[in-house]
């Protein structure tokens, strides 16, 4: 049943993945206009810009992660069948990542080409995204559960996610520099922390929602 939930949510996410991916690419192409077409500047700052675009793209799907299921009573059904809220939250994180992480990592390829990143930086960017996007998905589900049904949920979600995502951005961008992988380790530590904590925070929020 949990596998079914993940499959359904992931399929739904993939179908709607066009929106965040398109946003990610459009945002990435805006940076050259903002800072000028200096190829050296773009190549040195491009990785960080792609990280920022990924962060903003992660905000887009938040509103449709939990709210439809809460409205349709799916969450109540799951609770009645004895599935813990934490399990539902964990399933939602996994499904959200499946529908969001890989498409974003693929979209980073043309994004990197547009900004003229070299191959080694692209490799480090993809490694960072592979580690960081699960945490972005975890944050997304948690904040989605916190803001279900609130006035201006979308803007609120952005306000809540961004400060929590600062360490991901710092270490993700730090890992773009050639180095001994220290930043990547810290990124992994932060991502593990966020991903491990998310089912409990989101689960508690789902439980509060049913009251």
């Amino acid at each position: 049943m949990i596998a079914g939930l993940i499959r359904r949510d992931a399929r739904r996410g993939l179908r709607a993945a066009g929106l965040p991916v398109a946003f990610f690419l459009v945002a990435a192409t805006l940076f050259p206009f903002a800072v000028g077409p200096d190829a050296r500047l773009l190549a040195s700052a491009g990785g960080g810009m792609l990280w920022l675009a990924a962060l903003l793209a992660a905000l887009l799907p938040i509103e449709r992660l939990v709210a439809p299921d809460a409205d349709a009573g799916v969450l109540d059904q799951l609770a009645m069948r004895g599935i813990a809220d934490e399990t539902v939250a964990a399933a939602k994180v996994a499904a959200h990542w499946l529908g969001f992480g890989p498409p974003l990592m693929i979209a980073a390829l043309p994004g990197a080409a547009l900004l003229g990143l070299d191959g080694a930086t692209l490799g480090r960017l993809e490694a960072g995204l592979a580690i960081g996007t699960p945490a972005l998905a975890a944050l997304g589900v948690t904040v989605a559960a916190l803001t279900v049904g609130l006035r201006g949920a979308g803007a609120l979600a952005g306000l809540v996610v961004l400060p929590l995502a600062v360490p991901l951005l710092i270490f993700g961008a730090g890992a773009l520099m050639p180095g001994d992988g220290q930043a990547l380790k810290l990124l992994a530590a932060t991502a593990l922390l966020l991903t491990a904590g998310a089912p409990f925070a989101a689960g508690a929020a789902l439980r509060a929602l049913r009251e």
Partner: protein
Amino acid sequence: MKAKNQRLVLTLAALGALVAAALLAMSALRNQASFFYSPADALRDHVRPGQAIRLGGMVEKGSLVREPDGVTIDFRVTDGAASVAARYTGIVPDLFREGSGVVAEGRFVAPGTFVADTILAKHDEKYMPPQIAGSMHETKSLKP
């Protein structure tokens, strides 16, 4: 599986992840996410000339030389283990002086030679009135 058991499994997985995160962070902490490189780090890591970095340490005693043009200074940044020659053109903060902490933003132009765009003064956590400071205070090293 009952809801309680599901929670238990998730808690165990989360605890495992926390331990892994702590291990990763401990193995990585120290160098990265540092605000600045110490001279020894910069020389050891072979920071590429031209790459923008911050270099931090103490201004070596007796190394501060003002060029004839009046605004360019040469000094050495040391962390006790290594020292790097640095050059800066512009106005320095009041607290910038020999034997005191400094963080220089700039780039290496050659191995061991640093050109700073910005000079920041770093002070330590000691505060005292001048009359005490004169007799006993001397910053020996900048705690990393």
